[in-house]
């Protein structure tokens, strides 16, 4: 995880090439096809003769930015709304859950596509759309969890003891919903990175020549037979990153969940 983050921070400095530069002399073979790994280009080049390694390094920043920022936005909104509405119920819950219902009643990806198409493809719009539309799942799951938790004896007991709402909510209930929140967040980062790649695949993603991993996969996928590395390299990056997030989530879950020591 740390290394991925480090790469995201330092990527632009580590990159041996400018990720947008087309190396026509050595980056493409006589037929105009990308070249494989070699001395000049450690991981070979893409269809435009650009250094794959450099694009991966710089792309780490773009993909993580999309993944983190959009997930951060949506998870933040979702967690707060889920906690509050599950705990207090009543009108707050009704309004919150109806909003969730409405938003969730739109097919997520379809809505993203429509919004990005109606606005304009671009990093900011992709981020905003993914972030502002993605919080509903979290809100629902957290609320469902809180609903179940608040009926538990320990919450009843805390309430009988006259503890304040804030204390009960954050000290007692929150730790018990952290598990699913972590799992969801880690998956959220991954699915956001994937959603960005889908938007790229459909021609609605981050505009070129910005090298997001998703865009690299969608640019490279037609080469699956001749240069499978163009898909495999960014695919592996996404996989490793997602794996990292999941392991992190699991670890946190073990630490944070008081009853799950075994």
């Amino acid at each position, binding site marked *: 995880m740390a290394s991925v983050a480090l790469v995201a921070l330092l990527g632009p400095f580590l990159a041996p090439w400018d990720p947008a530069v*087309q190396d026509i002399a050595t980056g493409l073979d006589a037929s*105009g096809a990308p070249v494989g790994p070699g001395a000049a280009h450690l991981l070979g080049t893409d269809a435009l003769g650009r250094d794959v390694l450099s694009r991966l390094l710089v792309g780490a920043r773009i993909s993580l930015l999309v993944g983190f920022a959009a997930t951060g936005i949506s998870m933040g909104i979702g967690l707060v709304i889920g906690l509050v509405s599950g705990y207090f119920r009543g009108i707050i819950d009704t309004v919150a859950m109806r909003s969730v219902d409405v938003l969730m009643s739109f097919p997520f990806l379809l809505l993203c596509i429509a919004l990005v198409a109606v606005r304009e493809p671009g990093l900011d719009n992709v981020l905003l759309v993914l972030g502002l539309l993605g919080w509903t799942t979290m809100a629902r799951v957290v609320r469902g969890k809180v609903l179940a938790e608040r009926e538990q004896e320990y919450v009843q007991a805390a309430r009988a003891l006259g503890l304040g709402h804030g204390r009960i909510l954050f000290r007692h209930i929150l730790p018990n919903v952290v598990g699913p929140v972590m799992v969801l967040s880690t998956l959220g980062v991954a699915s956001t990175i994937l959603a960005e790649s889908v938007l790229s695949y459909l*021609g609605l993603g981050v*505009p*070129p020549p910005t090298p997001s991993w998703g865009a690299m996969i969608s640019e490279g996928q*037609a080469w*699956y037979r*001749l240069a499978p590395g163009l898909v495999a390299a960014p695919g592996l990056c996404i996989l490793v990153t997602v794996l990292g997030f999941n392991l992190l989530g699991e670890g946190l879950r073990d630490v944070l969940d008081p009853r799950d020591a075994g």
Partner: protein
Amino acid sequence: MSPLLLLLACTANPDGLTPGAGNTAPVYGGTFVYADEDDIRTLDPAIGYDEVSWTAMHLVFDQLIAYAPDTDGTEVRMVGGLAESWDVSEDGLVWTFRLRPGVTFHNGRELVADDVVYSWTRLFDPELASPGADFFGGISGSQAMLDGETDHLAGLVALDTRTVQVTLDAPDATFANAVAMVFGSVVPREEVEARGEQWAFSPVGTGPFELSEWQLGEKTVFVADEDHWEPGRPYLDEIVHLAGYPRTVQFLKLEAGELSQINRMSSPDYLWARQDERWGPLLQEVPSIDTYGEMMNTELPPFDDLAFRQGVAASIDREKLKKLRNGRYRPTISWVPPGLAAHVEWDELSADEQHAYRYQRHDPALAKQRLSESRYMQDGRYVGPPIVYWALSDEASLTTAQSVQQDLSLAGVPMTVKTTTFPAYLAAVGQPKTVQIAYTAWVMDYPDPRNFLEVIFSCDMRAEQNSQNTSFYCDDETERLLDAAAVEVDPDVRADLYERAQARIAEAAPVAIEYHSTSLSLVQPRVKGFRVHPIWTRDMREAWLDVPEGRPTRAGGAR
């Protein structure tokens, strides 16, 4: 034609138009299956204006004039279609068509001159808003009809059941081209009126195939017209068009024997096929009649500055583009493509003539000099407004956009690329003062320099909406040359006028002229008589299958 919608091709393969053409005699029967990324948009010939629809409509409809079967890349010859002959008056104003006898529609009724009058008059129905009106607009009285003042087209009469006479407002050498377009198709009035809204989905024509079934968004089936008038029914029993297949999948389907032919290939699939021992020899590469480049909006900074435009045009590395597209692009200095009058080649021009075209080649030193003379560059730094390049999200457009972006970046001009959907692109570039620079393709409606120069660079073609002239270039001398050429009947004088107009345009650089494309075709070995066609893209009218079977199975056999 809308740029980009068409990727027409013409064959330059002189021996057999079909790779692997054997010496077998044509046989009857079988199904030809082909696929596109898009569905057929409409089968109303007055409306359809895209490649997929045109290919399909070529099966169902005929026009008075047809393109000769031996049409190739260097010359597109026109012959009688539904008309057995036609003649033009001395002054070039009156065209008289003599219809072929015994032609019948699919409903069995015989074709008469009134059908032609009805079909062409229909193009000017304001409600229909036919794109064909532009091409038949030379007919006397057409404007009055478009304005809704009359429902009778004064310049079009049926002299008798087999003779149609057209009167033009001015001589027009390209009128025959218009007649041969899909808009010139002859349709039966009774069927059009009976079907109303459904007409576009259930056409009746005189062509060798009839529409049998159309599952929108999925597939369209055409069957042979058993009672076809002449020369009898076509060889194929059935032609099936499948909609919605990505290019990569089309290639897999061809390899698996599920398709008879493909003509759009991604770069990797092309390279794969080229080195493949089975498909390599079957690969046809045919020059298209088209031109690609960048439109630069002459009304918007920084492209309102002549020196800047010239510098940008000279910065673009056309050879690099060619390499990026696996050698399939032909770099050019001429907006009018090869095979047409007024096309020029750098090496064939005198030094004097070359002067006008000098910015349309990659020349970093000249580019640098012109850019430095621009008011938007100071001390080698770009000081103008941010430049946004409009591109589409297909492979060709993205490749060109990113390559040009690199070239300009090397010349010290930063630029961002914006990708967009096709309708949004069309709406934006067709609006004044909206788009600074855009990826541009021009694929002909008909093979004539007029279609390449007048339509895009004439002052008259500027509009507040859907402007065809997307650079909004307007030059008095160019306009004078284009106007003179439009009504000129003498081919040599006409070619000279267009050549001079093109030289002025090349020098003023409202467009960076880059390359002509090459289109590809891969045909199953047992498909014979199939032709890659400059207008219809695919011509299956005379195709046959070596071994008649229900459908091409895993057929080429050798997997």
